[in-house]
């Protein structure tokens, strides 16, 4: 099963200045979204394998789109996150099937390493519903400077029979981060936490 994709959206958000101070280098977050048909819309299916396979496909596609949009080498990625919005004819478990079983491995391949959990969010919604994609450092979940979220929204999706799938990759943390905690240079990168 390959995803039946209606549209793909890629956004890059670059912050150069915050509260009157230069952000050097600028922080950059890339968001890639696929709007896909939900093969289980409008019915209960015990087996959700088609969506699990779609998740694997989209982990690679969307992860690579983000890295390309940032113009970086995969190893230069800092943080990542994922999210899905299920249209009205679907159920939350459909988002779970895309996001959790198989999306992570190809996304990690797209950014190299990735010892940490890929933080996620999901909801059911109508067209134009926004979802905040949570972000954490890809190699160490406790890196406080990289806790963040990026808003994803498609004006004409999801239609009832669709699912919006979003992946975010950054090459930086928050602008002007200064609340301490584990720093990037202190990452051990073994257990996914520190």
């Amino acid at each position, binding site marked *: 099963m390959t995803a039946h994709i209606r549209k793909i*959206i*890629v956004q890059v*958000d*670059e*912050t150069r*200045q915050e509260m009157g101070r230069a952000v050097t280098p600028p922080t950059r977050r890339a968001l890639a979204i696929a709007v896909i048909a939900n093969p289980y819309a409008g019915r209960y299916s015990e087996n959700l394998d088609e969506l699990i396979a779609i998740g694997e496909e989209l982990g690679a596609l969307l992860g690579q789109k983000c890295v390309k*949009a940032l113009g970086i080498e995969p190893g230069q990625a800092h943080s990542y996150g994922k999210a899905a919005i299920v249209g009205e004819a679907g159920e939350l478990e459909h988002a779970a099937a895309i996001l959790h079983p198989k999306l992570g491995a190809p996304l990690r391949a797209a950014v190299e390493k990735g010892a940490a959990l890929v933080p996620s969010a999901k909801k059911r919604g109508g067209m134009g519903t926004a979802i905040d994609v949570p972000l954490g450092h890809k190699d160490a979940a406790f890196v406080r400077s990289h806790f963040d979220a990026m*808003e994803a*929204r498609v*004006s004409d999706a999801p239609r009832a029979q669709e699912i919006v799938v979003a992946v975010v990759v950054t090459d930086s943390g928050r602008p002007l981060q200064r609340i301490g905690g584990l720093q990037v240079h202190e990452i051990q990168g073994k257990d996914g936490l520190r």
Partner: protein
Amino acid sequence: MIEIKRVFTQVEEIFHEFGPAPAQPLIRGAIGAVLTNPYAGRYEPNILPMMDALQDVGIDMARQLLVSMDVLLERIATYGKGAIVGELGELEHGALWHVPGGYAMRELLGWKGDRTAYKAGKVDEKPTGQPGNALAIVPSTKKVGPPGATLDVPLTNINACYVRGQFDAFEVRVPGAPLPDEIVFILAMTTGYRIHARVGGLLAKDISQWNGLR
């Protein structure tokens, strides 16, 4: 005067809208630059210095947009522009974008940097009879709005604004901007026809008058 705080790009590939998918997807791109509004919170009678200062901003944005869209220049078929002014500004501040925003894309698409010739009306006569490129007015919208406000940026063909199958609008929005003392300046370009366009009218291949209209 020019203080660029954020740059936001968005590129959309549309494969179908529940009809037969065309051979190539429609690609729509937009770029929004978030700038400090130097006139926020007061009435400034002379705002024209900002218009001049925006020229280079526009050109950089148009180039960056094309790079983000990752398509050949020749494929750009429609364009549009807009501005969202934060609440301490006025609509007229958004109007500063009309000249530099329009110039920027037209220069990129048609005159490739020879602004003097453009201003003087001296353009290359192409063997096809097409006197240059980007002949049509760049359609626009603007508003005063809160952070995250959406703007529907109108889109029309770059050479003939009556190409019906390419009338479109692109919803653009920068989460978190504009703050009260900011302005979001927007440029948008696409590769052409709406997906499943089928309401007739002038086609781009039939443009004959090269007057920006037909």
